[in-house]
C-alpha cells in the first residue's frame, strides 16, 4: 500500500503540486480572519470564579484599566514651582487620552479643608509656577500626610510623582450619527498607547529635566503585543536561518534546502490559515507556535530527504530514490507526527485558554507538516533538478559504532550513574517554586518591564488585591459599625509587611469629619452617626468635579465599597499567603463583611497551580495514548512499558535541572511535560523499533542489536535532536517569559531525552533482555 502511494506521488507529481498550491491557498485565506488579542484576561477561562468576581467589581464601581505615568525630576525635588507647573500641564493634557474617564494627579487632587466654618473642596494647587516657598511647604505637608496620595501619586521622599489615567475601553463605538460598531480592544489599546507616548515625548521635550516612565494595565496589555512583534521580527528570521544552515550542512543539497523551506512555509501558511478559519485568537503564547512548527517540520523533511539523498548517492535516480525513501519513512514519520500532535492536543486540558490555542495551532501545524512532507516534498523533489556528489559517510558511522561500544562496555556504570543522576534531579523537583508574576513575563528589553521596575522601586507597587465589602442594606456604607469594621480591616492590612498602600473610603470619612469640625485634629476619626456620615459624604460628593467622583470606591446604592491594597513585588506564594491571611482575619473579626480578594495579581497567583493540576490529566491522557501507539508500533506491550522510562524521565530530570538554573515555574512550564512527551517519544520510537527489528526479527544478541540501532538511527537522532534543541533555544531568547521559559525547558528536555536514549536505554535493554523478549523468544529461536 505504501509502495503504491510512493509510486502514485512520483508519477502524478505535477498534479499534486497544483493540488498542494490550491490547498495552501484555500486554507491560507483564513488568515484574513486572524486577530491578535492582547488583553491579559485571555489567560483565564470566561467562567473562572475569580475573573467573574473581578469583572463584577469593575461593573459595580468603575474599570481600573489604567496608564500610570511617573515623572522623575533630575534634581529629585517634586515640590518646586517648575515641577508642579509641569504636573498641572501634564494633567490637563492627560485628559485628552482616548477613552480616559479619570485623571488623578497631585494638582487635581481634591483637597478638602475647613474654611470659615464651611468645607472647601478644591484642587490641591493651581498655577504651580507662581507658588511661593510658604505655599510650597504647605502643599508638600498636605500631600505627604494624605493617605490617598503617599505611595500612590507621590513618593514618601517626594522625589517622584505620578499621573494616573483611568480608561474605560468601550465594547462598542458610537459615532455622531448614533451608529454603533463593535470595538477591537487591541486597536483601542494601541490608540491609547500612541497618545500616551506622544504625551511622554511632549514632556521630555518641554521639560528636559523630567524622566518619564509608563506602566499600568494598558501598558501591560500593549507589552503582550510588543513582545510578540519583537519576537516575530527577531526570532523568526534567526530560526529560519538556523534551519536552512542545518539542513544544508546535513544534506549538502541546495534543492533539498529549498524544498524544506517550501514545506515549512506551506505548513505555517496552512496552520495559520486554518487558525483563522477556526476563529482562534492570536495571543503571545500562540505566537510561539511558528517557531515550534518550523522546527518540527524540519524533522519530517530531514528524515525523508536524507534517505532520498543517500539513495541517490548509492546510484539510484531521483525517482527511484524517492520511492524508496517514502517506503522506509512513511510509517515512522506518520507515527512521530501523530504522537507529537497528541502531545500538543493534550494542552487542551490546560486551564489557560491561550495554551489550549497554542496546542491546537501547533498540532495543526505538525499534521500540516506531515501532509506536505509526504505529498509536496516528494513532488517538488522529483521536479526540481538535483545533483548529488558521491560521499563517504563511514566516518560518522564509525563515530556511532564506537559510541555503541563505549555504552556496552560501561553499561553497569552508566546504569548507576545516569540512573543516580535521574534520581537526584527528580528529587530536586520540589525545590521549584510556583511563581506567575505578570510583570516578569516580559524581560528588560521590553520598555514596560524596565519602567515598571523603576516605578515599584521608587513610588508604588504594581501588585494589588481588591476587596468589595458588601453590606446588608442600602446606605449601610455610612453605618458607624460598618465603617469601624472596615477601618479595623484596613488598619490591619496596612500593618502587613507586604503592603505598601491601602485605598479606603474610611480615610475620606475621617478627613471629612475633621473638616466639618474646623479641621480639629481631635475629630480625625469616623463620624459618630450614620446620618452625619451620609450627609458629609453627600456634601463632599456635591463638591467634586468631573471624573474625580467617588463612583470608583462606592457603589450607587451606597451599599458596598471597594478597598484596594497595593503590595510590594511578591512571588505567587507570597500573594497567596497574604490572601489567605486576610481571609482568615476577616472570618475571625468581621465575618459579616467578609469579601473575596480579587485582582489580576491574585488571578495570576492562582493560575500556575491550577494549570499544573489541570495539565496532570492532559499529561496522563497523552501518556496513555502515546504508550498505546508505541506498543502497537513496536508490537510488544513489554517494550511499550519499557518506553515509559525514556519517555518520562527526561521531563522529570529537566524540572530538576530547572530547579538549579531557575527555580521558578508557572503556567507556561506546566504544559511542557505534555508537550515534550510527543516530541521525545520520537527518539524512543526510532531507537526501539530498530533495536527490536535486530533483536527479534534478525535474532541478534542484545549487545549486537544495540550496535545495530546506533549505526542505523544514531546519526538521524543526533541531528534531529540538535535541530530541535537549536529551534527551542531560539524560542528561549524570547522577550516574553512564558515563551522563553517554555523554549528553554523544552530544549533541556529534548537534550536529556537524547542522553537517556543513548546512555540509559541501551543498558536497560541489555539488563532486562530476558523479560523483554519472553513472549517473542520462540520466534527468535525459530529464526535461528
Amino acid at each position, binding site marked *: 500500500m505504501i509502495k503504491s502511494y510512493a509510486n502514485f506521488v512520483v508519477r502524478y507529481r505535477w498534479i499534486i503540486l497544483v493540488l498542494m498550491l490550491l490547498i495552501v491557498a484555500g486554507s491560507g485565506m483564513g488568515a484574513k480572519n486572524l486577530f491578535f488579542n492582547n488583553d491579559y484576561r485571555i489567560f483565564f477561562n470566561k467562567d473562572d470564579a475569580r475573573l467573574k468576581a473581578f469583572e*463584577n467589581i469593575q*461593573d*459595580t464601581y*468603575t*474599570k481600573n484599566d489604567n496608564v500610570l505615568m511617573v515623572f522623575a525630576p533630575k534634581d529629585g525635588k517634586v515640590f518646586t514651582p517648575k515641577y508642579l507647573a509641569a504636573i498641572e500641564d501634564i494633567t490637563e493634557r492627560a*485628559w*485628552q*487620552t*482616548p*477613552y*480616559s*474617564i479619570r485623571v488623578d494627579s497631585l494638582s487635581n487632587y481634591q483637597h478638602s479643608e475647613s*474654611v470659615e*466654618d*464651611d*468645607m*472647601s*473642596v*478644591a484642587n490641591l494647587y493651581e498655577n504651580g509656577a507662581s507658588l511661593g516657598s510658604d505655599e510650597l511647604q504647605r502643599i508638600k505637608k498636605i500631600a505627604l500626610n494624605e493617605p490617598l496620595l503617599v505611595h500612590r501619586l507621590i513618593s514618601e521622599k517626594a522625589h517622584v510623582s505620578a499621573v494616573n489615567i483611568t480608561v*474605560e475601553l*468601550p465594547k462598542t463605538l*458610537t*459615532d*455622531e450619527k448614533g451608529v454603533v460598531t463593535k470595538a477591537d480592544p487591541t486597536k483601542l489599546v494601541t490608540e491609547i498607547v500612541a497618545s500616551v507616548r506622544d504625551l511622554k515625548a511632549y514632556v521630555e521635550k518641554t521639560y528636559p529635566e523630567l524622566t518619564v516612565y509608563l506602566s499600568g494595565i494598558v501598558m501591560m496589555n500593549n507589552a503582550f503585543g510588543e513582545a510578540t512583534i519583537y519576537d516575530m521580527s527577531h526570532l523568526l528570521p534567526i530560526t529560519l536561518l538556523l534551519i536552512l544552515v542545518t539542513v544544508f550542512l546535513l544534506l549538502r543539497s541546495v534543492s533539498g534546502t529549498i524544498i524544506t523551506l517550501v514545506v515549512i512555509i506551506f505548513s505555517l501558511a496552512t496552520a495559520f490559515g486554518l487558525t483563522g478559519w477556526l476563529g482562534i485568537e492570536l495571543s503571545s503564547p500562540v505566537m510561539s507556535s511558528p517557531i515550534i512548527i518550523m522546527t518540527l517540520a524540519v524533522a519530517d523533511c530531514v528524515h525523508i530527504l536524507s534517505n532520498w539523498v543517500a539513495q541517490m548517492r548509492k546510484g539510484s535516480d531521483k525517482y527511484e530514490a524517492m520511492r524508496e525513501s517514502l517506503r522506509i519513512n512513511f510509517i515512522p514519520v506518520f507515527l512521530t507526527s501523530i504522537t507529537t500532535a497528541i502531545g500538543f492536543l493534550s494542552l487542551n486540558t490546560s486551564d489557560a485558554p491561550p495554551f489550549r490555542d497554542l496546542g491546537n495551532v501547533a498540532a495543526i501545524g505538525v499534521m500540516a507538516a506531515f501532509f506536505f512532507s509526504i505529498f509536496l516534498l516528494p513532488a517538488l523533489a522529483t521536479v526540481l533538478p538535483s545533483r548529488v556528489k558521491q560521499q563517504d559517510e563511514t566516518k560518522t558511522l564509525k563515530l556511532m559504532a564506537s559510541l555503541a561500544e563505549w555504552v556496552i562496555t560501561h553499561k553497569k556504570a552508566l546504569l548507576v550513574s545516569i540512573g543516580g543522576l535521574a534520581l537526584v534531579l527528580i528529587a530536586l523537583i520540589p525545590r521549584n517554586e510556583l511563581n506567575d508574576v505578570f510583570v516578569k513575563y516580559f524581560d528588560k528589553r521590553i520598555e514596560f518591564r524596565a519602567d515598571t521596575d523603576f516605578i515599584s522601586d521608587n513610588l508604588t507597587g504594581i501588585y494589588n488585591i481588591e476587596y468589595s465589602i458588601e453590606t446588608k442594606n*442600602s*446606605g449601610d456604607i*455610612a453605618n458607624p459599625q460598618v465603617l469601624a469594621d472596615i477601618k479595623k480591616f484596613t488598619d490591619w492590612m496596612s500593618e502587613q509587611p507586604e503592603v505598601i498602600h491601602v485605598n479606603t473610603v474610611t480615610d475620606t470619612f475621617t478627613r471629612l469629619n475633621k473638616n*466639618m469640625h474646623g479641621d480639629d485634629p481631635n475629630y480625625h476619626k469616623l463620624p459618630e*452617626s*450614620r*446620618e*452625619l*456620615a*451620609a*450627609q*458629609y459624604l*453627600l*456634601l463632599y*460628593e*456635591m*463638591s*467634586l*468635579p*468631573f*471624573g*474625580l*467622583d*467617588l*463612583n470608583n470606591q*462606592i*457603589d*450607587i*446604592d*451606597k*451599599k458596598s465599597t471597594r478597598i484596594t491594597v497595593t503590595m510590594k513585588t511578591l512571588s505567587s506564594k507570597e500573594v497567596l499567603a497574604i490572601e489567605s491571611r486576610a481571609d482568615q482575619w476577616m472570618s475571625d473579626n468581621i465575618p459579616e463583611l467578609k469579601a473575596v480578594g480579587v485582582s489580576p495579581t491574585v488571578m495570576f497567583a492562582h493560575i500556575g497551580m491550577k494549570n499544573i493540576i489541570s495539565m496532570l490529566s492532559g499529561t496522563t491522557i497523552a501518556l496513555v495514548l502515546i504508550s498505546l501507539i508505541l506498543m502497537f508500533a513496536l508490537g510488544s506491550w513489554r517494550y511499550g512499558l519499557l518506553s515509559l522510562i525514556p519517555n518520562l524521565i527526561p521531563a522529570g530530570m529537566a524540572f530538576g535541572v530547572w530547579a538549579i538554573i531557575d527555580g521558578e515555574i508557572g503556567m507556561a512550564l506546566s504544559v511542557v511535560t505534555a508537550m515534550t512527551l510527543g516530541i521525545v517519544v520520537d527518539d524512543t520510537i526510532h531507537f526501539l523499533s530498530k533495536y527490536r527489528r535486530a533483536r527479534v526479527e534478525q535474532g541478534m544478541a542484545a549487545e549486537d542489536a544495540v550496535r545495530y540501532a546506533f549505526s542505523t538511527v544514531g546519526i538521524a537522532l543526533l541531528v534531529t535532536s540538535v535541530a530541535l534543541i537549536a529551534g527551542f533555544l531560539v524560542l528561549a531568547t524570547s522577550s516574553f517569559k512564558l515563551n522563553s521559559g517554555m523554549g528553554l525547558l523544552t530544549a533541556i528536555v529534548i537534550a536529556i531525552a537524547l542522553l537517556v536514549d543513548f546512555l540509559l536505554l541501551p543498558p536497560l535493554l541489555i539488563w532486562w533482555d530476558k523479560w523483554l523478549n519472553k513472549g517473542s523468544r520462540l520466534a527468535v529461536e525459530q529464526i535461528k
Partner: protein
Amino acid sequence: MLFKQTLSFSLAVAFLGLSFTAQAKAPVENAQQKGLRIAKEGDAKDIGFGDTTANMIMTLKNRAGKTSRRVISIKTLEGKGDGDKSLSLFNQPADVKGTAMLTFSHGLKPDDQWLYLPALKRVKRINSRNKSGPFMGSEFAFEDLGSQEVEKYKYNYLREEACGQGWKCHVIERTPAYKYSGYSKQISWIDTKEYRPVKVMYYDRKNALLKTLNATGFKQYLGKYWRPSMMSMVNHQTGKSTTLQWSNYKFKSGLSARDFNKNALAR
C-alpha cells in the same frame, strides 16, 4: 436649581428686558447668531412661569444591572434680572432625608449653593466651583440639571431635522462659556414649534461622546409651559445610566424669595 432642571437644558429666564425682535432684523444671520436667537426664543417661551414645584424620582443603574433610587422634591422661583433660585429637598435615601439644597444660579458667575445637613443642624455653603461632578452619584452633573441660562454657552446652529413623533428639531451646538465645565460641547435638539428640549448629546473634554440625554412625555402646563415627565441619561463610556421621573408639577403657587433663603432650608 435642580428644579429648573425641568427646564433643564431648556433655557431659563434671562434678560427680560432684552428684545430679540431687534436681533431678528439682522439682514443675514450666521450660524452663531441663529443658534443664539433660537436659544433666546426658547428661553423667552418660558418667561413668566413664576414658580414651580415638582417631585422627582431619580433611578441609577450600574453596568452590573443594579439600581438605586433617590427621591427629591424641588421648588423653583423664576429669577428677575438674575438666574432662577431653587430649593431641593431630599426624601430618600433615608440617611439623607431632610437634607436640603439651595441654589442661586447665575450666568457666567459660579452659582451660589448651600446645603442644610439635618444631622448637624447646620447650613453649609458648598464651597466649590465644580459643577461638573455627578449629582448624588448619578449620571447627571449639576451643570446638566441646573438652570440653563442663555449666557452659559456659545451657540452654533447646525441644521434642522426630524426628531420623532412627527416633530422637527433645531440642532444646535453649544459650547460652555464657563471655565469649570466638564464638557467641550453639547449638541441639543429643540423642537421647532414649542422649543421643547428633546435630546442633548454631551462631549467630554477630549471631545468624545460621553452621554446622551433623552426627554420624553412632555406636558403643557397653564396652557404655556412644557415640562418632560421622563429624562433619561445614558453614559456611553461607563455603561451606567440614570432616569428622572417627574410628577406633581405645580405652577404659580405663590412662592416668594422668602421661601428661598438659608432660613428656609431647615424647614
